């Protein structure tokens, strides 16, 4: 798709400014994977983009902003659980920075292309609340991946990609597998031809006794307990 040198330069500049759509972005990423000259040029454009805010007239933030940041970081520390410990696990930690960007890209794309429900204001409000991101890897469905945003004060949403479409009578189901208690269902969902879904998640009252989070396939009406193969799995502890 990208052939001429000039054409790619155009794309690199727009990429650095965050001004390409998903397929154009993918083209650039494919190209720079094998072209060190373009990769280096892109890094320069990205530096240019990131200093642009220095050209703005500076405005001081409201004083309460810092107080709120402190309160939120302390609230997270006070509830140490397996999920917080997970941040120390190098693989998850390394994913974190990627997730921030992937998250935005995926959500944007979902909101544009998803045949399913568009993200409503409640989902948007949710994603602004303090919480944590949990990554699910496609152990049983290698092309798939997912992330769950679980808000500190309950509720959450799941963004998943790379799953196959199912027959009408089948659906995917998200499970919180707990130690010493039955697994609770977090969501029942299907994916469209894009292989993606973005759904609200019912989280258990506490994540502290959650041993694992998995996605399975089952009847469209949902199962009382996880059945069949674990397609996606979160294992955030060593």
């Amino acid at each position, binding site marked *: 798709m990208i052939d001429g040198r000039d054409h790619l*330069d*155009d*794309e*690199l*500049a*727009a990429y*650095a*400014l*965050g*001004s*390409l*759509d998903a397929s154009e972005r993918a083209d650039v990423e494919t190209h720079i994977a094998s072209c060190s000259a373009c990769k280096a040029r892109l890094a*320069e*454009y*990205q*530096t*240019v*983009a*990131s*200093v*642009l*805010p*220095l*050209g*703005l*007239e*500076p*405005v*001081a*933030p*409201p004083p*309460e*902003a*810092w107080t709120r*940041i*402190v309160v*939120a*970081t302390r609230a997270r520390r006070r509830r140490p659980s397996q999920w917080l410990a997970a*941040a*120390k696990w*190098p693989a998850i*930690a*390394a*994913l*974190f*920075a990627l997730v*921030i*960007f992937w998250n*935005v890209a995926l*959500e*944007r794309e979902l*909101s544009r292309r998803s045949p399913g429900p*568009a*993200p409503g*204001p409640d989902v*948007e409000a949710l*994603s*602004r609340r*303090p919480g*944590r991101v949990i990554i699910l890897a496609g152990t049983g469905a290698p092309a798939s991946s997912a992330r769950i945003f679980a808000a500190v004060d309950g509720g959450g949403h799941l963004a998943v990609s790379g799953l196959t479409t199912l027959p009408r009578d089948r659906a995917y189901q998200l499970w919180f597998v707990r130690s010493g208690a039955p697994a609770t269902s977090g969501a029942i969902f299907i994916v469209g031809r894009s292989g993606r879904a973005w759904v609200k998640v019912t989280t258990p009252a506490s994540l502290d006794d959650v041993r694992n989070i998995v996605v399975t396939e089952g009847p469209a009406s949902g199962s009382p307990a996880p059945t069949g193969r674990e397609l996606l799995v979160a294992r955030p502890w060593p």
Partner: protein
Amino acid sequence: MVAASSSRPHRGTDGEEPSDLDLIREMRLGAEAALEALYRRYGGLVYTLALRIVGDPELAREVLQDTFLSTWEGREAYDPSRGRVPWWLMGIARNRAIDLLRSRSHQARLRERHDGPSPSNPAASPLAGAPSEVALRAVVRQALALLSIPQRQAVELAYYGGLTQSEIAQQLGEPLGTVKSRTREAMERLRRLLAPLMDPKRTERERD
């Protein structure tokens, strides 16, 4: 990435402020004070950027808070080889702000406001900033001033407006190719003008 930074031990220079990387290392040890120092250094810039994008002081404050919370939670993941700390912060903040900007609830909210967004807070005083930052601001402003008006507009619609090249073309009623090459010309010009900023590794070393 963690190994690379820990192989270079902390070396504070007498009487000088810790470098950004020192602060990230201290944050990795759990030092909240280091996060506060980082906030004092870049909070104003993050807020200014967020305000420019979302046009609403309250939403800008949310972006500011989210950005520093993400920084705290992602402190293990920061990779110095991918760019300097402030650029990392700006990336997080811009993504967050654009996300909000494109969300329907935000657009509805802005529509409700008859007077439109009020981008500047008259009570807030401009930030003084370190001398090096003042110089940096001047360099960036001069570079932007050297762009043609259409070039500057292309950059601003993309970076602050969160629009794709196609959306910009649509909005301006111009061919996509024109918008793309104009964006590239603008970025190329800025790249040349801002060349001294281009080597993040060297700049970090100078700071240490």
